[in-house]
């Protein structure tokens, strides 16, 4: 953490960046996103095992962009997100300084190739509770799995915190808000919730970097990230797409190759 404070102090003092997006002390022992704009505040940054939220979600927020050039404290999944954002032309290369953190290490990544090297050498490690959830669900029969999701999705009241927390859900007008035609039924009943989450999973297939931010954000406690993680697993094992490791990758949903398998349609 000392190294992080030092680095951020330097970046702000030298004028290399005007704002650092990082984690700070929150309420009730939680961490929270903070936006450090002066070297004197660098010590307000924290980095420990409470810091799960994917801060890449703030990079393109207009209020933050207005502040000038930014640096961001990024865990391995956030690094992958940034790589994926560059691949999807949501971020130009070199636009942001990435302070990649994992355990006690800190690396400053400023160009595409260093981001890619870092992303490729730092796989996203799920928190233990996510690993357990994935295993539990894999052990269910198809009917049981359907019932599991029915019960989970019944809790969803469509607050869209999962979408808002996801840096890769950046569409200005999400499919749920398009009304000509109305693709997704708006009320949060069984059908509306099912349509919403299936659409979201499809849109994130091969793009979701498995950061888990959506699950953490969901106030209803739905392990909603499992759907996009699964969609991405299919994209990886069936089509060879690994999101967030190459700054000029094409996307799984918009590329078609003759040798693509169709076995995932079940």
């Amino acid at each position, binding site marked *: 953490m000392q190294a992080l404070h030092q680095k951020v102090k330097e970046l702000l003092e030298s004028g290399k960046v005007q704002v650092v997006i990082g984690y700070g002390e929150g*309420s009730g022992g939680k*961490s929270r*996103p903070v936006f450090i704009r002066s070297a004197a505040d660098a010590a307000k940054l924290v980095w420990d095992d409470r810091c799960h939220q994917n801060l890449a979600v703030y990079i393109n927020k207009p209020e933050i962009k207005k502040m000038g050039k930014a640096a961001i404290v990024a865990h391995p999944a956030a690094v992958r997100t940034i790589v994926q954002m560059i691949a999807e032309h949501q971020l130009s290369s070199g636009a942001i300084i990435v302070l990649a953190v994992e355990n006690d290490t800190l690396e400053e990544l400023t160009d595409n190739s260093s981001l890619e090297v870092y992303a490729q050498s730092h796989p996203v490690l799920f928190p233990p509770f996510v690993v357990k959830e994935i295993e539990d669900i894999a052990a269910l029969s198809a009917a049981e799995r359907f019932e599991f999701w029915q019960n989970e999705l019944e*809790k969803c*009241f*469509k*607050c869209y915190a999962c979408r808002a927390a996801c840096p890769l859900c950046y569409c200005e007008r999400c499919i749920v808000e398009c009304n000509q035609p109305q693709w997704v039924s708006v*009320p949060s009943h069984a059908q509306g919730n099912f349509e919403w989450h299936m659409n979201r999973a499809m849109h994130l297939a091969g793009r979701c970097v498995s950061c888990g931010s959506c699950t953490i954000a969901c106030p209803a406690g739905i392990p909603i990230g499992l759907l996009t993680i699964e969609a991405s697993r299919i994209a990886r094992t069936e089509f060879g797409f690994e999101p967030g490791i190459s700054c000029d990758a094409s996307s799984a949903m918009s590329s078609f190759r003759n040798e693509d398998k169709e076995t995932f349609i079940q």
Partner: protein
Amino acid sequence: MKSITHDNLLKLLAGLADEGKIVYAPVRKGQKVFFAPVQNMQPVVFDYIQTTESPKLVLFPRYEPLISFEYQGKEVKVDDPSAAAPAERVLFGSRPCDAMALKRLAEFFDRDIPDALIAGRQKALTVISMSCIKADADCFCTSTGSSPGDICGSDILLTPVENNGYAAEILTGKGASIADRCSSLFSEIPEIRKEQYLAKVEKAFSHEEVRKKLSHAFDHDIWNGASLRCIGCGACAFVCPMCSCFDIQEEGTAKKGSRVRCWDSCGFSLFTLHTSGHNPRHNQSERWRQRVMHKFSYQPEAAELTGCVGCGRCSRACPSDMNLKEQLQDIAANVETV
């Protein structure tokens, strides 16, 4: 005064369900506690500080048809769901802040042009609340006009006392009708001082002071800094017992369907977007300001009604730790009086 044992309370609720009333009670789903209709009382939980979703759904459900329609050639047949008498409901386990919120919510929908759907449900609702013997750091009911043992809005208020029982305050005619019919389940105890059992919630700010300061704070720079980490989801509004905003949407086919109202939130970027592309609230800071202003300035100015009861749900639900109590303390401390 009256009291009831834990076992008799479960019997009372089960009896109400058997009579055909829909009994909403707190149940655990995964890690979180929700209000849900229960037939038997086995899943009902008591060990929560606050539920995740508020009980507003008993008056103002997540979604509901406002009308339904069917085309018959060139003609259209419209059905009005408010014509049917609403089911008798019992809400159990609401906190005093929740009961106050339901009362204010019903008043809001009844103001000027009454909303018959909400009023009908309110008439058919009996509220059996539970005083708070525990609170957490996110609670601030005492700053918004409620308190851990407040009776406002409840028909019966139970306060946990010694020996696994509850002191029962029968507060309204609706409450009395239940207590009278099931009088064998209650016993008489000498008057108690319930304060000794209640949680202590320190007053964090004065809502009158906040209201005064907000009345000239629209252009204050406090909003910019305060809202930077808000990601504009609907979590705070959807868990809030007092947020009343809704969207109206069509469901079904082009021939037959219904017009449905669903919860909405002023935090969403599209909430105020015109078809032309113009948006009066372009930035999240403007939307966050609307949230605070609506609850603590606009509603109090317009109707002497604070749009928040301090239940703390929004702070617990917020993925970005916006913490409303802290924000209001900040306003009380840092916005100047003129």
